[in-house]
């Protein structure tokens, strides 16, 4: 049994025939070839797979592709407008908020959703807001600084 889904990903319309059990993250990575969204776990803990679905941050490993039917999805590949880095991407580079880069796409998507909810988050609010995203490399400190920096840039 298969389903036909229509959705937009990073502003581009797609229509695909998928198995009902296919996860959104596998749809994005394996079918659309958007491998910027990473997979770090199988229990919805790490946040590496975070994307936006209709403007909300979701863990794409916890959403079925069929649930995204009709939705608008944004992934890390959709963050840089016309080739220039998004202020969050710039801030992560300036503050050294990434090392191996594996958690980074999910972290940036989660941070972007956070900043849209709260333009001027405190350190504590950033730390709490990113709790669902794991990083083993940075110890989070420079990620927090990057989000603070981006908040200023985006103000």
């Amino acid at each position, binding site marked *: 049994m298969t389903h036909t889904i229509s959705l937009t990903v990073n502003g581009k319309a797609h229509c695909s025939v998928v198995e009902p059990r296919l996860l959104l993250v596998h749809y994005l990575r394996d079918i659309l070839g958007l491998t910027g969204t990473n997979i770090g776990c199988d229990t919805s*803990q790490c946040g590496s797979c975070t994307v936006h679905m209709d403007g909300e941050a979701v863990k794409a490993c916890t959403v079925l592709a069929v649930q995204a039917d009709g939705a608008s999805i944004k992934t890390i590949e959709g963050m840089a407008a016309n080739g220039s*880095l998004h202020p969050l991407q710039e801030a992560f580079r300036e503050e050294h908020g990434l090392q*191996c880069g594996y958690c980074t796409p999910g972290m940036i998507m989660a941070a972007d959703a956070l900043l849209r909810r709260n333009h001027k988050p405190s350190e504590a609010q950033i730390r709490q807001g990113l709790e669902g995203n794991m*990083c*083993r490399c940075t*110890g*989070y400190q420079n990620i927090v600084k990057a989000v603070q920096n981006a908040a200023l840039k985006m103000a």
Partner: protein
Amino acid sequence: MAKTVGTSVKRVEDPRFLRGQGTYTANLQLPGMTHLAVKRSPHAHAIIKRIDATRALALPGVLGVFTGKDLIEGGCGTLPVGWSVPNQKTPDRHALTPDRVRHVGDGVAAVVAESSYIARDALDLIEVEYETLPLVTDARKAAEPGAPLVHPAIANNISYEWELGDKQACADGLAEAHIVVEQELINTRLVPNAIEPRACVAQWNAPDDQMTIWTTSQNPHPIRVLLSAFTLKIPEHKLRVIAPDVGGGFGSKIFHYPEEVIVPWVSRKINRPVKWVCTRSEAFITDSHGRDHVTVAKMGFKRDGTITGLQVTTWANQGAYLSTFASLIPTILYLGCISGMYKVKGIFGHVFGTLTNTVPVDAVRGAGRPEAAYLVERMIDIGARRLKKDPWEVRHKNFIPASEFPYQTPVAFNYDSGDYHAICDKVATLADLKGMRERQSEARKAGRLVGIGFSTAIEISGYGPSKVVTSIGSALGMWESAALRVYPTGKVTLFTGSHSHGQGHETTFAQIAADELGIAVSDIEVVHGDTGRVQQGVGTFGSRSGTVGGTAVVKAAAKVREKMRRIAAHQLEAAEEDVVFDQSNGTAYVKGSPDKAKTFFEMAFSTFTANQLPAGMEPGLEETAFFDPTGLTAPNSAHIAQVEVDPATGEVEIQRYVAVDDVGNIINPMIVEGQLLGGIVHGVGQALLECARYDSNGQLLSGSMMDYAMPRSNLMPMIEMGRTVTPAPSNPLGVKGAGEMGTIASTPAICNAVMDALQIDHLDMPLTPERIWQALQ
């Protein structure tokens, strides 16, 4: 050209990661790709009676199912070890076990299918009949008489016994002590959990008999040697191993893993590309774990706090098989470091490396050195408490004085440099230790459980020379190589055998080469992680890339400069000894006449036209250098943590964390600080959260990210950092290594702070609210 070494050049690699364009192994898509999954044992110890793959093979899309017997018959060898101590008994380890499973997660069969979903479906259709056996999971119990044997040929499950130090001096030291503190300590088992799970892709190219393997490795060159000589047995020149972008390693991606054998073997068998991506739950039961020591220690003190002796007995859990560097960790890297930063005459250590029905144990960030630091730093605090002395003063009293470097410890290592009193004073000043103490005593008067903890710790890194390292057990040399290819237009590719999986070598190695050659960082591209492009290499582990790999770059650059200088001399019609290479701008000229200089571009271009070279000089400009370290470096640190324990819940709040580290000279302060920060939080994770726990059936209870707690963004306050610098004398850059220092120091700092808050001698990690609350009752 201003010097770049010592400045925080922004990372060259960042844009691709920030845009989601990292080249992680799992991202690779090849035409005709197939997908592999591994059927794993649900039992900790059992005999395989029968494997029936009929139903799996009948599933549409399944291309094949292979067992351990198939691999053996197909020519695969057992996985070798890269370290052997005297009389070590190394059990056979097959990529898929043919007859008997020895830990939950041991691979018994592999299925390859048209999609990863079908491969997973097929796993459930493979029927395996087991006869379960008695089992053992505890390192010490495994060595007791009558314990179930993990490998029948290895008596008492003892793979090796190893001693270090002077037994008599230790006994004398303890005898002269005013008090002797005795303590049992458990160093918890850790799951490495790099956020990128392991993965492997292989592509067999039949017409050329060529195999290409992409794998999440920290060291592709040694992996190729092992694959070629021991496991897969494809000649090395027909085998290309690529470790593309790798999402963190922390030691766990050093080792040669079974899937690196299975995946290429199947690819050749079915003549199609094969991909395997580890799931996180699978990673918990297959990635080599870390630590897992049971230790009984005695430390003697004089009345004034002088340490007189240290005696250590440790049972180190090695798991069901010896992982690649298993026996290195609890021997030389652990016992070799139990002198810490202190002058202790009488030290003796004895370790049993035992086999159990658990996942193999090997290096995890710090590897042996955190276990040593935890032991020493906890013992000092217990001693200070008994002596009613400030633990800070006890440390101060026992430090090796700066005037005694290089300092030969009574155990193993010769520390290159350091100033331990200075680093301690610096951290005390930065933290305002006096004020901290005053505020603590006010808080305590108000009934609040505020604790201050210290740790001072050393790391041993960049070890060598190869002759010494191989004489104590290594199967590989500890050198590194670098090659500089200078193109006719003066642009440069730097090929290094080191591998970056977060460390930022594409930036720091380019900085080194830029300064050595007097050109811009942007004119240099760093290539690493590909045996098909990089000449030779050892790889990245033990915080060795800067010291060893970086020095190889310095040496290769010197050769380039030398050739350029000779070319300039020839073209300027000057004697070679009169011409200097100016590293500030990449030119060469006759001493005193910089106005008539040959530029980097001109000299590079003339190696291409080859019409104005000195007689006998070969055209082209490509220089390779190998560096074998002459000694080792001893990064060191002093950390102070302040915590408060909530007596109602047992929860620990980290209020301040102040860290001063001496990692020698620094290539890129931003990157070094980043590694230290990440390391610190990793170590705090062990102190408070992380623990791989087995039940009596050998099931891993904390076997997913849901059950195994890891540091998250809300764990720490902003860490306050400082640094002291004693340049390493053993390498021209003066660098010591920074990747593990934070982890080594932070675990004991936090544990000591919590014990200070609770005013008790000792609790084992992880210091969970439950454990603390119990202790408070």
